[in-house]
């Protein structure tokens, strides 16, 4: 039982490493933490296209915040 869980954990880890490398090559801007969250959201049934729109929207918002911070300095 524990061995089956370990095998699955190793498979997940390996798949995540490959997905992160593909993500890097595609220049998506996702780090391991945000990729893990995205994987879990996809597993919950969130539409990938809608999720990509959410990520782009969040980037726009945080970039404008960072830009205003730079202007204030």
């Amino acid at each position: 039982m524990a061995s089956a869980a370990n095998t699955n954990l190793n498979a997940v880890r390996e798949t995540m490493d490959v997905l992160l490398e593909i993500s890097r090559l595609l220049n998506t801007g996702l780090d391991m933490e945000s990729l893990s969250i995205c994987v879990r959201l996809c597993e919950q049934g969130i539409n990938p296209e809608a999720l990509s729109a959410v990520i782009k929207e969040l980037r726009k918002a945080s970039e404008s915040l960072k830009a205003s911070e730079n202007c204030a300095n």
Partner: protein
Amino acid sequence: MASITELLGSLCDCSLSGVSWKRRALGGVSREAFHRALKKRAYGALLSKLFQDGTKGSALAQSTIATTPPRNKVLMISFDLRVAGCREEAERLEEQLERLPEGASSGLKEVDAVLELLVHLAGSAPPPHTSF
């Protein structure tokens, strides 16, 4: 297992990394207020996609793209990379795609959905800095 609400909250947290909140708090923008605003925008983006009509663009072209398996879409990007002269990146991409297990052997339920997400986000980040 975390709920969609919790996961979207975590995604908002990730996008706020690197922002100095001590100085922000003095200017009247608290982390909590901005986090709430971010969540609102995230839900807005998520819901707007659910209610989009299918009248934009050619219906045939849209359905062809929609039914193309995500692995093939990655191969199409790889082809574009080759055409653009980025042979090494294209080969690395194909190599990683071959390494990516399919179905249950990946340990994940939705590998293709994640690949689809990566295709949608392809090229959305600023290019990496090159050092001279």
